[in-house]
């Protein structure tokens, strides 16, 4: 346990003090054991207070307002963009487009690629069987709109991408490959380097769904070499209502706008309009101003702790949990069973007790996990299960909480006579 907690660089107890909700007591006076961070993360006071202070002291609309409050709000909003750009190693700040969540960011790419005429019926779109619905449905819709065919990587029994057929899958016909960096269900970390190299060798664009990666791993989009990277604020100790699309500037500059409206225009007449350069071109209407301030505070918070430390903690907690869970009779992990190339989401089944019932029993002991398909129905289908129970961790998770999870799982088995 000392590996994980209370080291010089990473003091979980100290970190937990920043998260007011972790002090909550639930029904039956059980303390909250929050193991649902892959669903959404909790927020430190630093983020909550930044939003609060913004509304109390600096609120105004941005870009358009030239008064002092407007200047303060604009500077605060754009500072959020600067911070996010630096956090992910974006070569240019104007490569960071704010969306409402990761789903919108992914849809934005799919829509504008379609609208640009870059994707037609002779083309193929390649995804994987382990994608979140938000990285499946937009491509199905694009395929329906354009006639392009949709293909996908399968998943091996261990929950890894099956790369064997990569040369048949990614071909000269491939226009775009969209793949998750870290699976929110299986926990798998995918070999992006191989996929990106292959895709680029045939001239395909690469979209990376980094919703589960940016919160947990040091990310450098320039080093990664993908064309687009999407992620979401609420999973990285930031607020709801903001997501990010990073895109290579030259690509963004070529693509047509997504939503039309205020702020994304250069000039408007009744008959026609011209559009602003990125990122404004893709940010119609009043942007998520207070949310950018909150997300800026979130990346400051994560950076101060250090993404390397956060990743190491996640790795250690995951290894500990994988070990402890596998000692439970009848518990079957769906996804890689060792903490190698693996994020901190662990999905499992417990005998034939339905995940709803498992999570309900855990909840009655204060242990918050997620039950269901986790927006990854095809991945569940691949493993012949309709739903699973998922525990997921973050920088504030302790090994003591894993022990409580294990205890509650034993209790659950007993309850249902298993």
């Amino acid at each position, binding site marked *: 346990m000392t590996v994980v907690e209370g080291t010089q660089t990473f003091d979980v107890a100290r970190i937990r003090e920043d998260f007011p909700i972790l002090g909550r007591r639930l*029904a039956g006076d059980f303390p909250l054991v929050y193991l649902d961070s892959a669903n959404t993360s909790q927020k430190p006071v630093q983020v909550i207070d930044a939003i609060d202070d913004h509304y109390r002291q600096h609120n105004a609309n941005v870009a358009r307002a030239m008064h002092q409050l407007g200047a303060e709000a604009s500077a605060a909003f754009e500072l959020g963009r600067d911070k996010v750009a630096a956090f992910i190693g974006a070569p240019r700040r104007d490569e960071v487009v704010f969306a409402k969540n990761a789903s919108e960011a992914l849809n934005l790419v799919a829509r504008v690629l379609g609208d640009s005429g870059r994707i037609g019926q002779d083309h193929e779109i390649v995804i994987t069987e382990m994608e979140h619905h938000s990285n499946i449905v937009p491509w199905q819709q694009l395929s329906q709109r354009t006639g392009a065919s949709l293909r996908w990587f399968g998943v091996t029994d261990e929950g890894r991408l099956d790369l064997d057929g990569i040369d048949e899958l990614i071909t000269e016909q491939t226009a775009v490959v969209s793949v998750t960096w870290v699976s929110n269900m299986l926990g798998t970390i995918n070999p992006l380097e191989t996929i990106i190299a292959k895709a680029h060798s045939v001239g395909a664009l690469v979209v990376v769904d980094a919703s589960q990666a940016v919160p947990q791993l040091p990310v450098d989009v320039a080093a990664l070499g993908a064309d687009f990277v999407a992620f979401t604020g609420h999973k990285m100790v930031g607020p709801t209502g903001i997501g990010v699309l990073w895109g290579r500037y030259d690509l963004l500059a070529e693509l047509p706008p997504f939503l039309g409206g205020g702020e994304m225009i250069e000039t408007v007449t009744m008959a026609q309009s011209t559009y602003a350069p990125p990122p404004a071109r893709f940010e119609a209407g009043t942007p998520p101003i207070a949310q950018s301030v909150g997300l800026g505070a979130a990346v400051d918070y994560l950076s101060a702790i250090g993404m390397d430390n956060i990743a190491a903690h996640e790795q250690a907690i995951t290894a500990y949990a994988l070990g402890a869970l596998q000692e439970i009779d009848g518990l079957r992990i769906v996804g890689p069973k060792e903490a190698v190339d693996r994020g901190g989401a662990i999905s499992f089944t417990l005998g034939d007790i*339905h*995940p*709803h*019932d498992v999570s*309900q029993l855990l909840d009655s002991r204060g242990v918050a996990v997620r039950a*269901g*398909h986790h927006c990854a129905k095809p991945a569940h289908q691949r493993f012949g299960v309709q739903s699973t129970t998922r525990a997921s961790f973050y920088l504030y998770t302790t090994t003591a909480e894993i022990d409580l999870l294990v205890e509650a799982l034993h209790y659950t088995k007993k*309850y*249902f006579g298993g």
Partner: protein
Amino acid sequence: MTDAMNVDSLYQEIILDHYKRPHGAGLREPFEAEVHHVNPTCGDEITLRVHLDGNTVSDVSYAAQGCSISQASTSVLNDLIVGKNVEEGMAILDEFNTLMHGKGKIEPDEDVLEDGIAFAGVAQFPGRIKCALLGWMAWKDAVSQALVTTSSTTGDPK
């Protein structure tokens, strides 16, 4: 709210019994309508068939994948509805639906709901209300379709 959320009030003995030995499970013939319903949150699914004999619900058969609450509630539905006429069935559905959305403040009528009163506790667990209603909503859908089918065959379902 949290005070009342005792998990034992959810998992009544009656519910666990129905879950372990569901009444009327399986898909049977004949039937006038078959529907497939999904709980989008968790992926639970049910295929449910209704067989009408005139205006009488003479069979409700089903194949379901789901949690204890959804399985047990469909089992209770089978108990309550089969043999009743459509109007009586709809009235029971209404009663059950009202109970589910009553936030734990409604006293269930045992004469109408029989074993169904065991679901009173579900109303305090908003995440589970959809589970308890999955089979019922499927039945409502199926019976509406069956009425159309039989009316178009016979000219008058009554």
